[in-house]
């Protein structure tokens, strides 16, 4: 039973990370690429670490895995936000499909 749970965690985690990589390759502009990279990759690495925690059965290892998951969930949005702001200040182009750019309208005023 535990083996099935571990296998499910590992497989779904790897699938989410593959989806994140495909998104980073195929999405049209930087902001959408960051969207794929920060959300899907965080969920994928959290699932993989959860699988490792379930496998060990040792309290110390479980604690370290949960700490690592909390660390990734805390830092991924911070890093993505910093990169996005730097890119926007650097005039990184938006995709053609973008519907609205409220920050640019605010800056004009």
């Amino acid at each position, binding site marked *: 039973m535990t083996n099935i749970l571990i296998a499910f965690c590992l497989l779904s985690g790897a699938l989410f*990370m593959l989806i*994140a990589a495909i998104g980073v*390759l195929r999405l049209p502009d*930087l902001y959408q690429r960051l969207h794929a990279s920060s959300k899907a990759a965080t969920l*994928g690495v959290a699932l993989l670490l959860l699988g*490792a925690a379930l496998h060990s059965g040792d309290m110390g*290892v479980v604690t370290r895995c949960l700490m690592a998951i909390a660390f990734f969930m805390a830092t991924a949005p911070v890093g993505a936000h*910093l990169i996005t702001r*730097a890119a926007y200040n*650097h005039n990184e182009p938006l995709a053609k499909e973008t519907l609205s750019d409220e920050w640019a309208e605010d800056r004009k005023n």
Partner: protein
Amino acid sequence: MTIVFIIVEIMLAVAIAITFIRLMLGPTMVNRVVALDLMAILVVGMMASEAVRSGEHALLDVAVVVGITAFIGTVAFAVLIDRDTGDKQDD
């Protein structure tokens, strides 16, 4: 259980290869920073699956350190790119 590890490692290896293509293509430096950040997280995931496969739980500590290093690198690149822009606006 062995087939699970093979599938997981192949998926992660393909993901790293795809991210490397973006690292080479990436039209601007920011795109390359994003690809490098994702690559570090993929390496962390690969280490976690390897820790389960081999039973070597010390790899999880290494994975945490790789994650911290990647975060510091990303923040440093973001600050660098931001500062670059500030100089241009002054001119």
